[in-house]
């Protein structure tokens, strides 16, 4: 079965990104497909490659990047939510005249249409948030 996943709360403050991670791993282990995870609201903050948690804590962004690489998951960060919160890829940084970008490997910035498309193309949609 195809699962779409929405993460709508920020990392470390809220458990949503962790619960979603364990859920997606379990779904993949059971033979389901997770073609896309969509990050919205403060969930977009998962995608910054500049976070440096202490060594004895899980690294939420790196965990997602690794899982996505291993299983070909499309990690989509909402552009409108990302722009408000200062998350930019190289392309957007240039378009907006900013001097830096901060999106981690494996994540891509795109539109809210990707969320709707995920709802249309998957069998189940599960939301993790606050």
């Amino acid at each position, binding site marked *: *079965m195809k*699962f779409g996943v929405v993460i*709508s709360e920020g990392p470390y403050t809220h*458990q*949503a990104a962790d*619960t979603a991670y*364990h*859920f997606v*791993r*379990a*779904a993949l*282990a*059971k033979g*389901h497909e997770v073609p896309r995870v969509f990050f919205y609201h403060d969930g977009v903050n998962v995608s910054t490659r500049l976070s440096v948690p202490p060594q004895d804590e899980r690294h939420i962004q790196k965990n997602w990047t690794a899982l996505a690489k291993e299983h070909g998951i499309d990690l989509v960060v909402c552009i409108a939510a990302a722009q408000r919160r200062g998350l930019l890829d190289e392309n957007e940084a240039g378009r907006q005249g900013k001097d830096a970008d901060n999106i981690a490997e494996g994540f891509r910035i795109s539109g809210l249409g990707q969320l709707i498309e995920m709802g249309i193309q998957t069998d*189940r*949609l*599960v*939301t*993790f*948030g*606050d």
Partner: protein
Amino acid sequence: MSTLHTVNKSPFTNTGLQSCLDHCKDGDAVLMIEDGVYGALAETVMAERVAGRIGAVSLYVLLPDAAARGLAEKRMLNGIAGVDYEGFVDLVADHDRTLAWL
């Protein structure tokens, strides 16, 4: 045709669980995750309302979240089943849609 409802808030600070119980239909399932697991406790001001739906609605608690909070199964209401993440996945697959009470 049935729905899996997820509740992730403590019922003592948020009306999510109450609203969920008011809207779920017979045959639906409710899974308590994150701080929502406190809704599974017996002998609370919420317990009667939760227990009142057991049977008509299947109630579940996500065990890793309960364990993290030191919530032993013997403290929980009878009739609430524990699941791990694999069980969570099965619940999503077995119901037609998932509704998150955020």
